[in-house]
């Protein structure tokens, strides 16, 4: 379980101190949790801290009993590799690698042998409906296809935690629906943390955390999340 305790992040902007996140405490259960809020509410900062991209000014992030915020940079990278998957708004695929190679990349970092990497990457790409696009470079894929490759890459090592930061923000309606359906389907068996300002998308998650001004305003638990029938 991923847990945040009194998570606080302050930045200095010249002489001024900016509080990006203040005293955020929450334990993320299995299933989908959406984090919503207007721009500047601290959503991105929260995800940066939870994933170990950045370190908090106060408080901490715990993965089980492991204090992520106390680990050195390379060890945090190791934790991300073993336990976390990421889907970003801008897909962030490596442009010189094919879809298959992009998905195989985390497996390469994990030291999987080549044959097993190829097999696993092809398997995950098939799960997201891209079995026919294995050897295409990202610039030969549509936005929706690129986001599905990014999702396949996030799932390659079957992580317990899946982060999605505005995963449908750059997609058309049809692709948005495809990606959302895949994401929530994959989120059922793991902890899915979905950062979005799209309330419609957020309501398909089991829980919604409302952030404003760097503080957690409230948590809403939906009995029957909308769109789960998809």
């Amino acid at each position, binding site marked *: 379980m991923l847990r945040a305790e009194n998570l606080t992040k302050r930045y200095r902007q010249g002489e001024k101190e900016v509080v990006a996140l203040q005293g955020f405490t929450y334990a993320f259960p299995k299933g989908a949790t959406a984090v919503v809020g207007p721009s500047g509410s601290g959503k991105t900062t929260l995800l940066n801290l939870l994933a170990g*991209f950045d370190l908090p000014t106060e408080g901490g992030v715990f993965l089980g009993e492991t204090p992520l915020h106390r680990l050195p940079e*390379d060890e945090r990278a190791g934790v991300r590799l073993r336990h976390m998957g990421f889907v970003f708004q801008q897909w*962030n695929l*490596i442009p*010189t690698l094919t879809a298959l190679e992009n998905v195989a*990349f985390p497996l390469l970092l994990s030291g999987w042998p080549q044959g097993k990497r190829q097999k696993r990457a092809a398997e995950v790409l098939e799960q997201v409906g891209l079995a026919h696009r294995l050897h295409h470079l990202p610039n030969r894929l549509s936005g929706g296809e690129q986001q599905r490759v990014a999702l396949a890459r996030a799932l390659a090592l079957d992580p317990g935690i899946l982060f999605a930061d505005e995963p449908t923000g750059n997609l058309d309606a049809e692709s948005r629906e495809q990606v959302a359906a895949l994401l929530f389907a994959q989120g059922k068996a793991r902890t899915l943390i979905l950062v979005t300002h799209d309330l419609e998308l957020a309501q398909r998650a089991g829980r919604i955390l409302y952030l404003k001004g760097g503080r957690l305003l409230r948590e809403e638990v939906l009995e029957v999340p909308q769109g789960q029938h998809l």
Partner: protein
Amino acid sequence: MEVFLLVLRNLMARPVRSLLTLLGVVVATSSMVLFLSFGEGLRKALFQELSRVGPAIQVVPEGVEGFGFGAFPEITPESFRALEEAGKNLGVRAVIPTLFLTRGGFDPSTSFFFQGLPEGTAPDLLYPGTKSKEGRLLPSARGAVVGAKVAKRSELGLGSPLRLSPRVELRVEGVLEETGGLADNLIFVPLPALQEVLGTRNYSTVLVALNPGQKAEEVARALEGAVPGLKAQTTSEVMRFAERALRISDLVRFGISLVALVVGGLLVANTVMMSVYERIREFGVMRALGAKRGFIFRLVILEALLLALMGGLLGLGVGSLASSAINLYTVDQVGLALSAITPRLALFALGVALTLGLLAGLLPAHNASRIPVVEALGRV
């Protein structure tokens, strides 16, 4: 393998920039290879020639090192006689006085190298394996025997006149067969004729031929002890001296080529630095996915090394072609291949190119691996 592919594809994604950088490394490496190949060529030619010289000891005036080609004739007839006497006691086979004269300019085709031989001494005693192609092998008192290359180059044949000074004119009495060695470029003349031209009774070098089983070093030291003011050098001592001189010239030539190498290194550094700058987000994604700093460092350094290796190999190829072209000319003109690409030179060139790549890649690799993930991903 994927890491290598990643590096290769990244270089190929920016073909013009990579190609220009590669060309820079090729020019730097090939110029270094060519500069240093002259040292290797000279070394090879010299050692080949020295190993062909018959007499095992060369006696030169003290202070002169090497073969004594350029030495002023300082060995007096008295010193020579003392050497002969000492030689008899040591049981040497022959003691041969000789004199050198160089005429001509910088152009090898108009330069002439004369070696004076005492009466009754044929060139084959000094350069074993030398044979006459036309005419005599042993020149008469007013005759000369000409090496194959010099005969061809200067169109000398039997009966051709050789005017050494207004008073000394010789006629070609023999032309030697080509041996591929130093003798091909020499004109052998009677010693008294050269002494008359130079206005001296002295000699520049005395060659001492040993009997089988005699130890050159021991005889040389004994000769030095017997005749003060002279230095007796064995062939291996001459080789050692030549090696020292060549090393110094190697360093000078390497210093000159260093300018091109530094420019090549800066090109690689610039290309890799630009590539890192353009791929900050990509590195951020890799780090976000779980890549450690070392992985990013290796990725960038590998890019610099790959550029340097490809440039080094191509530079070696271009340098070899240029070396062959130069040899075609020098073999034709002076009968010696003055440039040589030896395995040690090839390894050295590749080593220098890789070191260059490594140095050029260190800073970009360090920067790439230290960018904070949030900054690299633009998530601040």
